[in-house]
Structures are given as structure tokens and as C-alpha cells.
């Protein structure tokens, strides 16, 4: 499996689209976590509002700020990454070239999973690192005492962020196996993340009892609840909510991850490669 992982890692490392996704994730996290709030801070109507905005950008809020965008935009980007890595093997016909080299199908898939896990880890790491640098710079520029979150909380926040992004990434990979391509999985996945879940939670859950129950099992809702449980603000931050508690959110996301992995594995194992 390690040989397959090293092949997948080389492909991902050399792939411009993977770097583009990382850069977009970084840019969006910086813009919406720091740049826009900082502009709001500079033009705040009163001191109370300014203090509130500044507090949100401080190092002590690093966890909540860093993972605030994970349920929605960063999730959509890692879903794209998963669909890209798997789907392009079908689009370019390279899956057959890979499989006739030697490896077993599930071993190739394990290599892909590991490569995606590492890539998502890197995205979370860079988002946290850049967030730390920016929040430190803002604190220093405002002569505010720098207070970092406890290491345990940081690790928990980091792991939760990775779980959220990995769940979306696995959904993208699974859809790519099921549809044997890239475009449809990305389209469907993004529509689900940005549209369907919002319609269920925002419209259907208010009208129908079963939709309210269904809402508690949706991956995006659970991702948003996990962010809220780690200090994310459910007021006005898109995708962040308090529908379920942090423990349930973690378990539901883990269950989704397992299901996505299993469906993808069975699909790859059973289907002909044409």
C-alpha cells in the first residue's frame, strides 16, 4: 500500500489543480476570517462593535475562526479534491494503466485514501498556520496581549476540522467511483453542500416534522454543529449551527466517512474497468 501511496502522492504533488484548490481554500479563509472582519473593525460604528470584531480575530479564537468555513466552502473544495483525484482516473483512462501494473484494486484505493488524508491534513495545517500568523499580526498591530488556545483544544479543533473536510472529500471520491467521472460528482456534491442542505434546514425543517428529524442526520448540519461545539459562532456564519451536540456530530461524521469509504471500495472492487 505504501508504494501505491507514494505513487498517488507524487501525482497529487505534481498536479496544478490540487495546488489551486489549496490556494483558494487559503485565500477564502483569510478573506472571510480576517480581511473582511478587519475592514469591518476599521469602519465599526462604535467601540463595542469594534471590540467584538477584534476579539473574533485574536489568537485565542484561532480554532473557531480557522474551521468556520469548513462545513461549506472548504468542504466544497475538498469534495472537489476527492472527485478530482478519483474521477480523473476514469476521465483519462489511467485507471486501467494503473491496475495492469500490478496492484490490487483495493490497494490502489487505500493508497488514494491515504494521499487524500495527507492532503486534507496539509490543507487544515496551512489554514491553521496562516490563521495563527494573521491573528498574531493583528494582535501585535493593535497592541493586544497574545493568548493562544490550549494545546489540547487546538488538537481537538484541528482533528475536528480534518474530520469535516475528510468527510466531504470522501463523498467526492465515492461519487467519482459511482459515476466513473469527475464533472457530475463535483456538480452534485457542490449542489448538495451549498443548496440542498440549506433548503432542508431552512425551509423543509420548518414545515415538516420528518424533515426536522432528517436534518439532524445530514452531514453538513453535523459538520456545522461540530464547528459550533468548538466555539464557532452560529449567528450569521453560513453553515454553522447548533442543531446537534459535538459528540453526536463527531459520531455522525465518522459514520458518514465509513459509509463513503465502503461504498467506494465495493464499487471499485466489483465493477469492470472498461
Amino acid at each position, binding site marked *: 500500500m505504501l*508504494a*501505491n501511496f507514494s505513487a498517488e502522492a*507524487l501525482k497529487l504533488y505534481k498536479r496544478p489543480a490540487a495546488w489551486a484548490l489549496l490556494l483558494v481554500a487559503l485565500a477564502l479563509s483569510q478573506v472571510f476570517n480576517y480581511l473582511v472582519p478587519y475592514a469591518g473593525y476599521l469602519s465599526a460604528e462604535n467601540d463595542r462593535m469594534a471590540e467584538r470584531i477584534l476579539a473574533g480575530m485574536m489568537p485565542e479564537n484561532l480554532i473557531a475562526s480557522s474551521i468556520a468555513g469548513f462545513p461549506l466552502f472548504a468542504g466544497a473544495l475538498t469534495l472537489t479534491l476527492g472527485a478530482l483525484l478519483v474521477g480523473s482516473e476514469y476521465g483519462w*483512462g489511467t485507471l486501467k494503466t494503473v491496475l495492469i501494473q500490478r496492484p490490487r484494486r483495493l490497494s490502489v484505493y487505500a493508497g488514494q485514501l491515504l494521499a487524500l488524508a495527507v492532503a486534507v491534513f496539509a490543507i487544515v495545517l496551512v489554514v491553521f498556520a496562516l490563521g495563527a500568523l494573521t491573528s498574531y499580526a493583528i494582535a501585535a498591530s493593535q497592541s493586544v496581549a497574545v493568548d493562544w488556545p490550549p494545546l489540547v483544544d487546538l488538537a481537538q479543533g484541528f482533528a475536528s476540522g480534518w474530520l469535516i473536510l475528510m468527510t466531504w472529500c470522501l463523498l467526492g471520491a465515492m461519487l467519482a467511483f459511482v459515476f466513473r467521472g469527475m464533472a457530475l460528482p463535483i456538480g452534485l456534491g457542490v449542489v448538495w453542500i451549498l443548496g440542498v442542505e440549506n433548503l432542508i434546514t431552512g425551509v423543509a425543517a420548518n414545515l415538516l416534522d420528518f424533515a426536522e428529524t432528517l436534518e439532524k442526520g445530514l452531514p453538513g448540519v453535523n459538520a456545522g454543529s461540530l464547528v459550533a461545539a468548538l466555539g464557532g459562532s452560529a449567528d450569521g456564519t453560513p453553515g454553522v449551527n447548533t442543531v446537534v451536540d459535538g459528540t453526536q456530530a463527531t459520531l455522525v461524521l465518522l459514520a458518514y466517512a465509513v459509509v463513503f469509504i465502503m461504498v467506494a471500495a465495493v464499487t471499485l472492487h466489483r465493477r469492470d474497468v472498461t
Partner: protein
Amino acid sequence: MDGEDFLLETRCLTKRYGPRIVAVDNLTLTIRRGEVYGFLGPNGAGKTTTLRMLLGLIRPTSGTASVLGRSPGHPESLARVGALIESPAFYPYLSGRDNLRVMARYARVPKSKIEAVLETVDLAQRARDKFSTYSLGMKQRLGVAAALLKDPELLILDEPTNGLDPAGMADMRALIRRLGSGERTVLLSSHQLGEVEQICDRVGVISAGRLISEGTVEELRGGGSLLVTARPLTRARKRAEELLGRKNVEVTDEALRLDTGTEAAGRINRELMNANVEVTELRWVERTLEEVFLQMTDEKGEDDVG
């Protein structure tokens, strides 16, 4: 010949897609160690489907196959098989060399093999360029290079000259001849008769998913025939049919094609002259593989209709 010499065997291999489409129908064939075997058939005959089954990419509906003593797709057999199936498929954003690096990792072969195979297919000069910038001929050669990474005992090439210009075809055929000249066994799938005729030791002809003939090129051609140009043709034909039987006489292009050996040439000439037929040409012609192939596939088509 004992079983040890068969590198690849299939028995009643069948692939169906739904109740109506039979892509490969009860295919039984054997490939011997060290030979260059031509898998000949028109487009859509089932060649690629067969090769995909032999490599474990698709599962047969029924029947069995053994590749280097293992089931198709088994890692131990794949470790000794190199293959290029249909068009060469690689990562467009990677260079030729990086594509081989990726494949070498999957195949678990040392990266030192990469430069050697690039030299073999004469691609070392362009190895740094992206795959997306390669011409079709270069892409095919990279496909062969990837197939050679494992220094395979069995090389499976599916239509390797497809889409190449005449010079590219000649280069590729020379390369295949070179690769098949030693101990290595080559299974070459093609619909190009000249290619198979030039390169292969033995040929299996497949049509509509069924193996309709197998043998050496000479065996398939079945020797030759006597071509007789004579006047009047109708009288010449009547006399020839009296001598050889109707089924051994065929009229083609204002001449008679007689299915008989060279030893009969003198007698036939004499008999025709005695019948007041003027013989202007009498020569031995060998049937081309193309003629044999078209005859076989036509007969197969008629059988199916019947």
C-alpha cells in the same frame, strides 16, 4: 507440447453484456512461451474485451483463463506481464518520465529501469516534456515503455499502431519485432493484416467474439493457387473444372484461380492447349492473409445468418 510451455490459456471464455450482447463467445486459445502471437480480427470482434479479461480489468461471464499460471489480474502474474490496452492513457500534466515514475511505483520496480525503457522506445530526448504535448506516436511509445518497465515475460499490445502515420507504424513494428525476438512472448492484437503477417509467428482469427481459426501465417494462407489467364475463358473454365472439380476453380479478374499445387501446372497447360484454349499466363500465386481473413470472416457471417 506439455502444459508448461503454454504461457497463457483460455477455456470457453465468454463475456456477455446483458442478454443480447455477446462480446466474447466461448473463446479457447493458447499462447506458447517465446512466440509472437497475432490476435487478428475486425473492429468490434472482441479482441480488446478478451485482453481486458486476461488482465483482470473485466470479469468473464463464464469460462476460465490462466496467465503465467495464475488467474487473470493476480498480482503475481501482472508482475510478469506488460500491457498496452487500446490508446495509451497517462496523466497529461506529468512529463513522460514522471508518468513512468508513477507507474514504476505501482509496479514496484526500481526507478533505474525508467531511463532504460525510455532509451528502448527512443523517447529519452522528450522525457521531460508533458505527456499532453506528445504526438500520438510518442504516446504509443510511452505506452510501450510503461509496459516494458517490469521487463515482462509476456507483452500484450492492443492495436499499438492505431492512428500512427506510415513512418510511425514502421518504427513501432520494428520495435515489436525487436521486443519479440528473444525469450519474450508477445500477444499482439490488431486488425491490420499486413502487420500481423510481418510480425507474428502464429495467428488466431477472431470474429464476432469467436475464434474462427488459429495457426501459423503459412497454415492460414493454406499455400497458394495457380493463376491462369486464357482465351476463351469459358472453355478454359469448363476444362479446368473437368480436371480439378468445380470447387477448386474460381474466376477472378478475367483469369482462373485454380486451387492446386505447382506440380499440376504442366499438365493443366497441356490439357488446356489440347482443348483449343490459348494460355497467355500461368503462374503460382500465394494467397495473402487479407484474402484468407476476408474469406473467413465472410463465411463466419454467412454461418451466423444461416
